[in-house]
C-alpha cells in the first residue's frame, strides 16, 4: 500500500476536454509543480507584451506596479529605477499554500476568499499596472474568475496588466516560470517545473475572461505563447 503522497503522484491524470473554454477534469493531487528531468538554464527572450506594457506607462513615475513573479533583484531594480513603487509576491507559492496540491480545492469558496484576502488585499484603484506573467493559466475557473474580478477592483481605470497564456490548446500541462526583467522588452525565464493547465485559453475565452476591462490586445509568440495586454 503506497502512502497518500506517493499514490497521488502515480494517479493517472484526468482526460482533457478538447472543447475550448471548458474546464479540464484533472485528478486531485496533480496540481503541484513537477520538476523537469534536467535543470534548465535561464532563457532570455524578447517580449512584445512587456514592451507594450512599458510603452503604455512611459514618461510617468510614481506608479504602483504589482509583480506576481516573486521578488527578484532584477525586477526590483528595473521598476524602482523607473521611479515606481513595487508590490511584489510569489503568487504560485501562495497558490500552493492556499490550495495545496489538489485542484479541486480551487473551487472551495472559503479558500478562494482567503487567497484573495491574503494576496490581493489592496484598496480599490490602488494599482497602476500588474505583471501577472503566466500565473492565471494555472488557476481553475472559479479561482480565475474571482481573481480577475478582484484585479478589476484594485486596478485604476486606464491601467494595464500583462499576462501570458499558452497557445497550445492541447497541452494538459505546461512549464511554469519565474520571470526577470532584462530591459523594457526582454525577459529572462527560469523554469519552475511543469503544472497542469486548468483551462484552455484562446482569444475568445480571454476576451470573455476580461470582459469588464476596456480592451484586450494579443501578441502570439514563436514559443506558442499568447502575451496579453489588458487595459482596465
Amino acid at each position, binding site marked *: 500500500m503506497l502512502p497518500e503522497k506517493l499514490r497521488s503522484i502515480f494517479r493517472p491524470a484526468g482526460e482533457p476536454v478538447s472543447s475550448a473554454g471548458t474546464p479540464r477534469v484533472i485528478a486531485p493531487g496533480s496540481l503541484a509543480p513537477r520538476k523537469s528531468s534536467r535543470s534548465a538554464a535561464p532563457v532570455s527572450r524578447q517580449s512584445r507584451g512587456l514592451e507594450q506594457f512599458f510603452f503604455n506607462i512611459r514618461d*510617468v*513615475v*510614481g*506608479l*504602483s506596479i504589482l509583480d506576481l513573479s*516573486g*521578488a*527578484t*533583484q532584477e525586477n*526590483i531594480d528595473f521598476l*524602482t529605477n523607473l*521611479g515606481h*513603487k*513595487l*508590490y*511584489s*509576491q*510569489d503568487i504560485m*507559492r*501562495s497558490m500552493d499554500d492556499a490550495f495545496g496540491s489538489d485542484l479541486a480545492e480551487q473551487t472551495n469558496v472559503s479558500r478562494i476568499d482567503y487567497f484573495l484576502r491574503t494576496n490581493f488585499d489592496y484598496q480599490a484603484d490602488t494599482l497602476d499596472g500588474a505583471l501577472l506573467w503566466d500565473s492565471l493559466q494555472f488557476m481553475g475557473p472559479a479561482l480565475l474568475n474571482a481573481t480577475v474580478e478582484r484585479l478589476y477592483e484594485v486596478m485604476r481605470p486606464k491601467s494595464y496588466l500583462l499576462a501570458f497564456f499558452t497557445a497550445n490548446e492541447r497541452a494538459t500541462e505546461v512549464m511554469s516560470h519565474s520571470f526577470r526583467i532584462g530591459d523594457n522588452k526582454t525577459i529572462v525565464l527560469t523554469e519552475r517545473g511543469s503544472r497542469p493547465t486548468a483551462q484552455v485559453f484562446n482569444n475568445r475565452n480571454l476576451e470573455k475572461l476580461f470582459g469588464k476591462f476596456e480592451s484586450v490586445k494579443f501578441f502570439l509568440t514563436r514559443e506558442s505563447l499568447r502575451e496579453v495586454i489588458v487595459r482596465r
Partner: protein
Amino acid sequence: MSMWSKKEETPAPRPASAPPAPVIPAAAEFKKETVPVSTTPYRTPDSDPRNTATIGKSVKVIGQIFTKEDLYVDGDVEGTIESQENKVTVGPNGRVQASIRAREVVILGQVQGNVEASDKVDIRKDAKLVGDITTSRISIEDGALFKGSIDIKKAEPKPTAAPVVSTPPAASASAAGASAVPVGAAGIKR
C-alpha cells in the same frame, strides 16, 4: 606561585549567546604601511560585536525596543524595533513580528511587519519578509521570500555646514529661502 597565577589567567568560557568572533583578516592585509597614516583613532566596523546588542535565540521580547547601538535579533520579538542611526540584523533563528526602523536592516530569518531603513535593506537567502519596505537601497538574494511593497526613497543629502561668509541681509534671506526647498526626492512622487 607561578602555577597559581597561571591558573588565574585562564580566559573565562564564552557565553553561548555571544556573537561570533570577528573574522581575522588575511595575513596579506597586515602589510607594513609605507605611507603616512592618519592619527585619528581607528573606527571599528559596523558589525563589531562589542557594539552590538544581542537578543539570543532563546529570548522572547514583547514590547518596544529602542537602541543606540547595532542590534542582532536571533530570538522572538513582538512589537517595534527602533535604531535610527544603526543596523538591525535579524538572524537565521530570528522571528520578528514588529515594525523595524533603522539605518540598515539585514534579514536572514523571518519578519512580519513594515521595514523602514534610511540607508539599506538586505534580504538574504532563505529569509522571509511579509510587510512593506521603505528604503534608499535594497538587496534581495534568490531564495528569499518577500511579500509586500517596496518604496525607494532617495536619501536627502545632509545639510553641510556652510562656510561662514559675511553677506548682506538681503542675500542671506534669499539663501535661507532656497535651503527650505526640499531636494533629493525627485522622480518618486507622482
